[in-house]
Each structure stands twice: as structure tokens, then as C-alpha cells.
């Protein structure tokens, strides 16, 4: 398949099941909601070493938030329910409880309930108070700037992590420009995050390493500087490869995000140095979710 001169590989991205939740952070203005959200989703690029994958889903209008203030919704993904709950609580405690004017609410009502502010309340040292409104429990924790308001729990759902595609270009700056264009479009899609910095990964990995202590290592088949000395998957003109990784609440959410992202890359086309779109798969051994590029773009 070729779109605007860009070859779409007959391959698939391989993804795996994760657990996910959404949290809504509000503050007196969008600036401070975003600061808190960025802190909470910081160092959450890959479950390989971060414990979770998290990102900002979108900015919320005051009419969309529980307390009528500007807000940001974030999604957090982890390999298991316990890990998710631990990461959520740790990050909420360090990044939202501490952030000026912030409040924290559940972004998903359904699914198993996991603690959001349920245990953070103990920071109040006995001065915390509870309010149950419309069936939802909130905690009011006295803090130095006033009161930290948080919902007690949020819903945990099954989700999909590790959707991806690779952009193969004639130069580094062309690969990055294409990925930036893709991210702009993908950020408009609901229920997905691209957890890596700016949404773009330059260090795509393969499973395993020559070093026993490492579970993952550089994807040498797609490393342009190794073209002559490894079993490369790159043709001579490819000088740079970048990856976009997508986590979504459902497979369909990732399908949709990949479609708009790949289309944005293809819109730049071969004339801008974009030669191929490929995907990271590990022979079907990594996970049960397969995203076939040509089917998605058909």
C-alpha cells in the first residue's frame, strides 16, 4: 500500500492489555491545572521502568469539570490493578495535593473503584472532612492555601497499551516534523495518550538484551547507523526512524488515533522525505492486540 508516495508496510503493531483510569485535575486557571497535570504525568513514559504510562488526554472547559473550574483530564495505564492504584495514589499525593488551588476528581465512574483521595485524606491529620454528594464521596483536606478537594475513588477499566507506528524518513528533522504533525492530529482524539516526551519515541526497543539484567534494548533493526552491521530493516536512503506509541481505553480508540496519525504523516508525503510507515511487533508474542497498518488505512 502506498499513500502519497509513502509505503505502508504489511505488518502490525503489537499491543498488550493494561489497566487504566482517568483523573480530572482542576485549578483556579488552566495554567495551574496544567502544571499539576504535567507533574502528575511526568516520568511516566514506559511501564518498562516507570511503573505506569500516563499522559494528558485533553484540556477541559469549566462546563465539563465537576467544580466548574478549568481542568485537565489525564489517563494513567499500568500492567496490573495494584500497580495502577499505587502509581495513581503516589502521583496524586505528590503532584496534585501539593499543587496550588488544585482539586482532583474521578474521570471514569464505571469499573472497579480504586482509591483517588481515599487515603490521601489522612494528610489532613484528623482535620479532614467528608461530604457525600449525589452518591459520590468527596474528601476535604485542609491545606495551607485553603482546602484540597478530592473525590474518594475513581473507576478502573481494562485498556490497551503499546499501540504504535514507526515513521521512516530520509532525515532526522523530516522524521520529527512528520511525528509532530501526527501528534497534533492524534491529540484531538478521545481516550488515548501518547505517553512519551512530546508523544514521540526515538529509542524504540526490542524485547530482551545481550545483557541479562535488561528486559529491553535498542531496536537495532531500525537503527540507521547500524545498517551495515546488523540484520537491518532499513533501506539505504533511510537516515532516521521515530515511533509514536499510543495507549487507549479500547482497541478502537487506538485504531482511530493511529489512522489520523498515519494520515497526517502521509499528508506530508514522499516529497518531504517520508518513505515508509512500519510498526513494532515481536512476532505476536508480546500481546494479543494486533493493529494491522494496511487494514487501518484501508
Amino acid at each position, binding site marked *: 500500500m502506498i499513500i502519497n508516495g509513502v509505503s505502508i508496510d504489511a505488518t502490525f503493531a503489537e499491543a498488550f492489555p493494561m489497566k487504566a483510569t482517568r483523573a480530572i485535575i482542576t485549578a483556579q486557571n488552566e495554567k495551574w491545572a496544567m502544571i499539576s497535570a504535567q507533574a502528575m504525568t511526568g516520568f511516566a513514559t514506559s511501564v518498562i521502568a516507570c511503573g505506569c504510562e500516563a499522559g494528558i488526554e485533553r484540556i477541559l472547559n469549566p462546563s465539563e469539570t*465537576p*467544580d*466548574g*473550574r478549568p481542568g485537565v483530564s489525564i489517563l494513567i495505564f499500568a500492567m496490573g490493578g495494584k500497580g495502577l492504584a499505587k502509581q495513581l495514589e503516589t502521583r496524586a499525593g505528590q503532584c496534585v495535593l501539593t499543587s496550588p488551588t488544585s*482539586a482532583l476528581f474521578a474521570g471514569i465512574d464505571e469499573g472497579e473503584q480504586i482509591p483517588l483521595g481515599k487515603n490521601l485524606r489522612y494528610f489532613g491529620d*484528623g*482535620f479532614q*472532612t*467528608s*461530604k*457525600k*454528594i*449525589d452518591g459520590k464521596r*468527596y474528601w*476535604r483536606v485542609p491545606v495551607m492555601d*485553603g*482546602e484540597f*478537594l478530592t473525590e474518594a475513588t475513581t473507576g478502573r477499566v481494562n485498556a490497551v497499551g503499546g499501540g504504535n507506528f514507526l515513521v521512516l524518513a530520509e532525515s532526522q528533522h523530516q522524521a520529527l516534523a512528520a511525528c509532530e504533525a501526527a501528534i497534533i492530529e492524534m491529540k484531538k482524539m478521545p481516550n488515548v495518550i501518547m505517553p512519551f516526551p512530546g508523544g514521540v519515541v526515538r529509542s524504540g526497543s526490542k524485547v530482551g538484551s545481550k545483557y541479562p539484567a535488561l528486559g529491553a534494548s535498542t531496536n537495532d533493526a531500525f537503527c540507521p547507523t547500524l545498517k551495515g552491521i546488523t540484520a537491518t530493516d532499513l533501506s539505504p536512503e533511510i537516515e532516521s526512524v521515530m515511533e509514536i506509541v499510543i495507549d487507549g481505553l479500547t482497541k478502537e480508540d487506538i485504531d482511530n488515533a493511529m489512522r489520523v496519525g498515519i494520515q497526517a504523516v502521509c499528508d506530508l508525503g514522499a516529497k518531504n522525505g517520508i518513505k515508509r510507515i512500519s510498526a513494532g511487533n515481536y512476532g505476536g508474542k508480546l500481546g494479543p492486540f494486533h493493529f494491522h497498518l494496511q487494514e487501518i488505512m484501508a
Partner: protein
Amino acid sequence: MSALTFTVKQETAQRVDMSPLVCQLLTNKSVAEIAGIELQNGKRKIRADALFEITGSDTQNIIIKNSFAKLDFIAKELQDGNMTVEGDAGAYLAIGMKSGAVTVNGDAGLYAACEMKNGLLTINGNAGDFLGAALPGNKQGMKGGTVIVKGNVGQRAGDHMRRGTMLIEGNAGDYCASRMIAGTIAVMGSTGRFLGYAMQRGTLLLWQHPTLSATFNDCGSHTLAFLPIMFKSFAKLDSRFADPTQAFDRVQRFGGDMAEKGRAEVLVKL
């Protein structure tokens, strides 16, 4: 199916225990069976059809017409039904109510919403003393649900209240929220003496400045984030509390009762 309607033929001299005439106890009963139910009336028993003209058949939707202040225990432990009282209700209205909705288009007597567990009780007139309170000797009053009173309430509203929301559009008598354990009481009108006496936790939300005892301490003026959420939850109610112009988030906060746990708060609109 029309509502099961009990129309009072003539007021009785003695009080009547209305607890058998509640939705969950009348399910699948015919009008003839309901007519034969005996109600305690003072020291004697009286057949339902001796006191009421009974029409309609929807046992989950009950109307009591020409009601008077000696009909006690209306909607006792109500579950999942609707009851409407045209006139006054006696004591113990909606005592132990579990779910459903009760509307009184008149006044209610003592102990309305006493130990209520859930549901919605609307009193369009006044309510007597011990609204949402615990029975004498019991430790916990109202444990959930919402009570709306469009008129005034008597003394000891919310005594021993444990959870839930009490919305009073008029005035509250003395000892409002006495010994309150938790929950929310909002009063748009004035409040009497000894407000929050021995109050442990919970919130008293006031539109008028109260007279507070020395055991409530001023914590200053604040903007509280939970108030807009709480007012938003009132929007669906048939009450002045649903009026957006009545909502506020800026309050003077008083903490107390310091002679008790001291974790309760009185929030006064600024």
C-alpha cells in the same frame, strides 16, 4: 393505574398509627383487602375503610387526602414508592424511610424523618421538633437521604444526625444540629439559640448570621470548592435551594463544638 387514594372521611379524636398503609406492605393487595386493614386508633383499632374512602389501585403511588395532624407514622420505613399527603401529617412522618419519595402539602409533626435512611422527603409547610433526629435513647438520627422543608422547623433539628442532607428554607428553632454526628443541614432563614450544641462533625450551612456559643471558634473567611458541587446537586430539587442565585462558595467558617470533638463547621454566607 390511578394512585391509591385514602380520603379522610372524618377526623378522629385519638391519634392513628398509619404505618400499615405504606407502599411496600400494600403490594399486590386488593382494595377490599386494604379496606380491612386495622389501624391503631388510640387504645382501639379501626378499619381503614372506617376512616378513609379508598379509591385507585396503584399501591406504589399513594395519596392521603384531607390528612390531619393526628395521622402518625405516615410512610414508615417506605421503600421504593411515592406517597403524597394532602394536608398535615402527624408525628414520625417517614420514620426509618429507606427509599422513595414523600411529599407533604401541609405541616408535619414531631420526629419527621426520624432515623431516615434514604430517599427524598419534602414538607411544603412547617416541621415540628426533632426533625431527622434519633428516637429517645438511640444514638443515631437521620443516616441518609434528603429532607426539604419549605417552612420553619422546630427545635433540635438534626439531633444526632449521622449522614444525609437537610434543607430548610425557613427558620430553625433552638438547638439546631445538636449532637450532630455528620451530614449537612442548610438553613436559609434564622436559627435559634444553642446552635450546634455538642455538634461533633458535619456542616451547618447558613444564609443568616447566627448567634453562636463560645465553643464555636472563628476560622475566618474562605472560598470552599465543595460548595459549588453541593449546590449543583440541589439543582434537580423542587426547592429554593435549586435556584442558582441562592448558591455561593464564599463563607465565614466557624469550627466547633470545641466542648465536643470540634470537627464540625458552621459556614455562613458572605
